[in-house]
Each structure stands twice: as C-alpha cells, then as structure tokens.
C-alpha cells in the first residue's frame, strides 16, 4: 500500500546547519498493516511522516501510495488518500468552529467544495451523531459546541474520527497522544487500535513510547540518524519486551548500520 524507495532528504544542504534527515530510507507497508515507528529525537521519524503526508518533498527517491506515485503531490492533493492525526490537539482541529463544522470539513476532504451549505447535507448530521456516539464521550449531544471548549483528549478523539471519516489509503498518527495526560492517551490509543482493526486500515503510527510501540500494531520500525535500523514483526516482535528493545536501540544508535544488516537477535 505504501512504498518508500531510496528516500534522501537533507535540510539546509551545504551550510553550517546542514542536517541529513533521511538517508536512503526504503520500506514497504502492506494493506491492513499497523506499523509503529520509534526513535530518539532527530532520528527522522517526523521527517519520514512528512514525506508520506506530503508537507515535505524528498531530494531523491519516491513515495508510492497503492501504486500511485505521489512524490510530487502537495499535501493538500494527497489529503484525499491520507488521514492524519496531529500531535497537538490544537493543530488538528479549528478551535472556533463547532464539532459539526470540523467534521464537515473532514467529510469534504478530497471532494470538490462548492457553494452548497457545509452543514446542509441531508443525512450528514445523523451520520456524524452516529460516529460520535461510538466514541462514548457524549459529544453527539454537543455538536454545535466550538471545539475549542473540549479537552485535549476529546479533541484528539474527534480528530481521529475526522481522519477516518472517509475511506482512505493510509492513516497516519503523528505522536497523537504525546500531548495528552495518561488516561486520555490510553483512551485515544485504544480507540485508534479499535478503529484501525474494525476497518482494516493501513496505519502508520509514530510514537515516543516504546511500550506503546510494542503494545499496538503488528510491526515496529526503529529509526536512528535518518535510517531505519530495525524492522520487527510477527512472532519475534510479540516476544520482545521493552528492555529488549532498549538494548537493541542502544546497539543500533552506537554503530553505523548497513542497510542489509537488520539483525534480529
């Protein structure tokens, strides 16, 4: 479903602040896979996400979504196929707009926006209410409330809903629980896993928590210094504990890893 080939990206090339953010990254994600990505700060995970989502174009290499070469597509064009949940609850929604209006924006994603009333579609409100009900937060009764009045956890839940409202090719979760308190984070993560499983969504989740990286999804990528240094799935992954991952992480961070050498102990 998602295929990154030989992606290279350098910020500020040739200057004192040059950063080689992505060094020859290649990976494939199959349809329905739920992949988690971890790595220390500066490892390149956000940049990786940015190339998938389209806010940044790689210097070399290609990004393909379900066979479509989207490397040159700007983020707005790719949005049709990409559902995205931001790290900050404030970033993913418009504070002054109501829950219903935010959902309407998501419902129009990828479609031509015209002069029809955004909230005017016949069964739209009912459909929104149905979805909101599933969140179990009582938000279906507050659809007219400005979303800025909601708590961070509630906003992220709505963001998640917005990202998955329409059929899409890949769901991108960008450390989406990092700004939430533990209980809200847990709720949102559980929700994410449920929705992904229920609809068999191809999911790419970046997280800063090793525990979450192992607890959710079916495959984990570890990044360091602009490269993918570890790619674990299946049984081996299910046997791993956080301490094991930490050890592997330390090893990978200390040495220069060749592309071929994805060692699984």
């Amino acid at each position, binding site marked *: 479903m998602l295929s990154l080939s030989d992606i290279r990206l350098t910020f500020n090339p040739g200057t004192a602040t040059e950063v080689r953010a992505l060094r020859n990254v290649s990976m494939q994600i199959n349809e329905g896979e739920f992949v988690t990505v971890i790595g220390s700060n500066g490892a390149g995970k956000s940049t990786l996400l940015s190339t998938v*989502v389209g*806010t940044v174009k790689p210097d070399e290499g290609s990004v393909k979504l379900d066979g479509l070469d989207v490397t040159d597509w*700007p*983020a*707005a*064009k790719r*949005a*049709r196929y*990409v559902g*995205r949940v*931001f790290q900050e609850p*404030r*970033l*993913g*929604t*418009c*504070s*002054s*707009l109501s829950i219903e*209006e935010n959902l*309407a*924006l*998501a419902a*129009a*994603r*990828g*479609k031509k*926006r*015209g*002069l*029809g*009333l*955004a*909230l005017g579609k016949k069964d739209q409100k009912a459909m929104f209410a149905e979805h909101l009900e599933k969140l179990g937060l009582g938000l279906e009764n507050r659809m007219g409330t*400005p*979303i*800025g*009045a909601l*708590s961070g956890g509630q906003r992220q839940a709505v963001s998640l809903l*917005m990202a998955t409202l329409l059929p899409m090719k890949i769901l991108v979760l960008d450390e989406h629980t990092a700004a939430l308190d533990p209980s809200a984070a847990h709720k949102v993560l559980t929700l994410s896993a449920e929705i992904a499983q229920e609809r068999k969504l191809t999911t790419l989740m970046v997280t800063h928590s090793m525990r979450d990286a192992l607890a959710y999804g079916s495959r984990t990528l570890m990044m360091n210094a602009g490269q993918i240094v570890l790619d674990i799935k299946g049984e081996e992954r299910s046997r791993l504990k956080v301490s094991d991952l930490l050890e592997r992480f330390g090893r990978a961070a200390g040495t220069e890893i060749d592309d071929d050498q994805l060692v699984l102990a």
Partner: protein
Amino acid sequence: MTLFALAGAFETGLLFALVALSIFMSFRVLDFPDLTVDGSFPLGAAVSAAAIVGGFDPFIATFFGMLAGAAAGFVTGLLNVRFGIMNLLAGILSMVALFSVNLRIMGRPNLPVYGQDTVFSRFESVVDAGLWSNTILLLIIAIGAKLIVDWFLKTEIGLGLRASGENPAMAEAQGIRNGAMTLLGMSIANALCALAGSLFAQMQGVADVTMGVGTIVTGLAALIIGEAILGRRTVFLATLGCVIGAVVYRLFIALALSAGFIGIRPQDLNLITAVVVAVAVVLSQRRGKRGRKQLFNFKLVRGAQQNDEGQD
C-alpha cells in the same frame, strides 16, 4: 446635532460597514493583515466614476468597480502566495501601485460624477424619502452584503476559507488548498471595499485619488468597536458587529463634531479614533466566559477566561 448631520452619520456609517466587512474577511477570517484597502477603496471609486462618465449605467459601473477591487485583492494575494512576499508588505505594495493606477483610470487627480446618473439618483427616483433616501439604499446594501457574507462562510468553500485562515496546517490535511483560499478571500474582501469606494464617490459627487487615505483605520475602528459590543462568537454576530460598529463610530464622530464642546475640531478626529479604538480593545478583553460581555466591569478578575484554548 442637526437631522442633517444625523442622516450623514448613518449614510457614512452604513457605507463604511462594507469596509468593516472587508477588513473582517481579510484580518479575521483569513488572518491576512491587508493594507490594499487604502488603494482598493479609491479604485472602486475611480473605475465607477470613469464608467459613469463614460456613459455606463450606474449599477453596471458599480459592478465594474467591484470587479476591479477583486482584481486588486487577487494581485495582493498572488504576491503573497505565488511570490512569497509577506502579507503586510504585499498589501502595501498593491496600495502604493494603485495610486498610479487610479490616476491613469481617471486621467486626472479627481473625476466628478456630479450631475450624472448614480445608483443614488436612480434609487431616489423610485423611493423618495428626502433626507433619508441614501440611508435607506445604503441600509439595503449593507445588510445585503452582511447576509451574503454570512451565507458564504457557511458554504463548503466558505468553511474551507475559515479553516484556511485559522489553521492552515489542518486545512491542508483536509485537502484545502491554502493558496487558492487566500486568493479567493482577498478578492472578495477587496471587492467589498471597492464597492464602498464606488458608492462613496457616487454619493459625494466626485472620485478623488487621495480618498483612500485612512480607509484601513476607519475599517479597523468599526470592526473593533463592533467586536467590543457584540463579540465574535458566531459569524452572524461578527458581521452584525461590522455594521453596527461602523454606524456607532460615525455617530460618535458626528456627535463630537457638532457638540463643539471641549473644542473638538475635525482635525482631532485621528486622535479621537485612536482613543476610541484603544478603549474598545481594552473593554473587549474584559470578557466573561463564553464571550458574554461585561462592559464597564472595572473589577477586573484576571483569569476570568477559564474555558481552555480557543476563546479569545
């Protein structure tokens, strides 16, 4: 205050409501501080005056003025979106260039339409309310513009525009092309401002190349006063605030001028405007929860805004 001055205040107030709506679109909705208005106001005047003198029907001439304004806004947007020029500077560049453009359009520094058919003379031939004819026509136009803006911001495109201005990253993630939204919004905003300029020239009988100076200040004052009175919880209230704020502002000026006490003269207007706007801004910050205003509540309780995020 004479009845004459009162009618004058309402006329100019309703006319500048259009400017306030324009500033609302650019400053508030698009988050684009747009100085083009000092140029698009006289542009609307110049194009309409030239068209009227050239024999066009005044309504068509007014429409031409609006089109010209839209083009000016589009250019400012283009400078920003396509060429990466900072929004404030882009507006300034357009405003400066428009001075020469307006001179070219009129062929002279001022162009009279006195004695020609204007939308006002046409209206008066149908509805003669004496001193209040202009006010009635302007009321229809101002309220009409307000309702159209309200409606537009509720459409899919309009909602996209609001998202683009408030949160460009989120808008992009929803498939909205921010650049296109900026161009559209700027065109609409400046079309409104040019409409105001066109009407002003037809009302006063002459289009003058310097008549745009200070448009931004008047528009901002009207917008801010309106927000102080009505808040901006919903689009309906915000645009209503534009109309009411503009009228209140002009009434206040007319009052100050006619009263003559404290020796207020027309040249003090700039100072008065600054004071009024400052007071309005300060008052609008003393809000209770959920935007319910508490005017004149000087027992300021800091942290009265307890609802998180969002609410200004």
